[in-house]
């Protein structure tokens, strides 16, 4: 009863904020939702790894960055659209993720949490600096005509291309839900995530499941890297903030709560878009996220202590 009352309260509050923004500057609502789509889509694979392999992967955003570079150079060499390279890049990234899992993560599964943390941090540095070594710190961008597609409603003009990220986020959320509840591998993964020992006892190959889930997550974030490239400039450090943002969203939602990731992204996206919409606050919009992450973490730790 309490839960439903609270969820009603939140919905009402959310609607009120949305209406307020709509009255004030409608384009902010659109841009906020578009931003939220990207954040959620990147965060969901991280939630998958955290929920099942129980590893906080601090190299998450860097995998996306590597995929974006791979897409850029293959698309340029073959003169094809990045979307055509999406599937091959994603598969190659999945394989790469598998190799990284085998060589590093797997060895540290039983190590203290601190070691895992520093390990994935090291992987993140190694990835971004390898790219830096190969392609220097220069930034690269694709110029595609369709990304500037826009639409106007009444007096307001806004870009609509970024809704592909919203679509991707929803697709990922629904797809993962179906995968985890309907397929054999997904059910096994869910069981491993809940209790690895128990899963092993009933005959699930835990190690293979971990490897599969990690590779899947890297593959998914790889596909997003290809999409990311279509809109944004890429440089070696571009993935770092997405690691942080994903972690923040996953922490905010709590382990295993993908719907929560969607709502969190929406809040973050709208907050950033509103700050960007006001000239005086624009410089401060990058601080929103960091304040939000600390607030989230503090609230979570208080909640956990109570429970």
């Amino acid at each position, binding site marked *: 009863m309490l839960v439903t009352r609270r969820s009603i309260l939140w919905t009402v509050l959310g609607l009120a904020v949305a209406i307020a923004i709509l009255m004030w500057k409608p384009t902010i609502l659109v841009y906020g939702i578009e931003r939220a789509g990207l954040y959620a889509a990147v965060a969901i694979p991280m939630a998958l790894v955290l929920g099942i392999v129980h590893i906080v992967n601090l190299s998450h955003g860097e995998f996306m960055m590597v995929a974006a570079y791979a897409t850029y150079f293959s698309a340029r060499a073959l003169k094809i659209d990045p979307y055509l390279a999406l599937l091959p890049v994603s598969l190659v990234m999945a394989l790469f993720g598998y190799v990284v899992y085998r060589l590093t993560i797997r060895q540290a599964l039983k190590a203290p*949490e601190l070691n895992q943390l520093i390990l994935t941090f090291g992987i993140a540095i190694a990835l971004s600096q390898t790219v830096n070594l190969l392609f220097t710190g220069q930034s690269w961008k694709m110029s595609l005509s369709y990304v500037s597609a826009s639409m106007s409603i009444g007096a307001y003009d806004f870009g609509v291309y970024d809704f592909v990220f919203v679509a991707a986020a929803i697709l990922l959320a629904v797809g993962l839900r179906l995968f985890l509840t309907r397929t054999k591998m997904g059910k096994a993964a869910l069981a491993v995530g809940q209790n690895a020992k128990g899963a092993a006892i009933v005959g699930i190959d835990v190690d293979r499941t971990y490897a599969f889930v990690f590779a899947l997550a890297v593959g998914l974030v790889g596909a997003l890297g290809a999409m990311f490239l279509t809109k944004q400039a890429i440089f070696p450090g571009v993935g770092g903030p997405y690691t*942080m943002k994903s972690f923040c969203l996953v922490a905010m939602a709590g382990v295993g709560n993908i719907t929560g990731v969607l709502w969190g992204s929406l809040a973050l996206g709208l907050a950033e878009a509103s700050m960007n919409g006001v000239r005086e606050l624009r410089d401060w919009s990058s601080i929103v996220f960091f304040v939000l992450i600390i607030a989230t973490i503090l609230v979570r730790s208080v909640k956990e202590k109570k429970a």
Partner: protein
Amino acid sequence: MNRLLSFALPLGCLALVVALPLFKDLAPAIAGPYPLSLARSIFIYMALAISWDMLFRSGQVSFGIAGFFGLGIYGSALSVLRLGMSPWLSILAAGLFAALVALLIGFVVLRLRAIYFSITTLALAEIFRIVLHNGGSFTGGPEGLFIPKIISSDNATLYWLALSGVVVALAASSWFERSKIRFALTAIRNNELQAKSSGIGIFKYLLVAFVVTSFVQGIVGGIQLQSYGSSSPDSAFDANYTLLPLAMALLGGVYSTVGPVIGAVLLGFAAETLKLRIPYGHLVVYGIIIVLVILFMPDGLYGLWRKRARARRSARIDARMAAKGASRG
């Protein structure tokens, strides 16, 4: 004899290092301007590495070294420019400023553990950077601040200044190692619940460790400012000031004072040679070192050496016992 050696050896080394600039005419290859400036940058990283390890002894991984280092840089610059403080005093002020900030946020942040603590320290460093970046003319904005005169243009003086940062870090670290703080931190790291039930004031010790390490990082930041003369948000809070000390401490061996020192010397020289050959991406080596050390050598070089020494000692004792047994039998 052994005990005497264990005191004399580090002191002798320290004396040699201190006296290094005096040999500039005798041996310019190791005491000329270039080696001295290389040594200075190694000292800066070394002090940061030691301070990172001091907090790591309690089991908390800070990703925010650059944050407090940057606060030290700005603390020193602002107290010279806005308060008219003397440069020497401003270095102390930088340390105190960083310590004060650490004290205030420590009350909240130190309730967090594991990844939550680490990510929060990382986010705090970013927040400091953004605040100083957007601080308008008071903080110099994106261009940062220039102080009219650095503390000295003499290489030897700057060398000793950087070295004194290391000495502060060493002093703090050996205080941690020789007092009961060491037992408290180790107990917290090993099993917090057990430590708590044995009556250790966990929060108090964590706060002391956090404030002292931030003080050291602030001092080092002040030294950095006073020897280079400029501070900008991007250079003061450069992620390298988090990354390099962390890699140095891990490679050398964590939970000790000696480890970070060894690591800083090795990686400091390595970084310099690599930087000259590979302008972009030489940091990849640090990433790989972190990964390899965590996977294959979690105790670091010093830990490895210590383990081997212990094994050798126990083998010797075993052999002696066996010999005794044989002669008796």
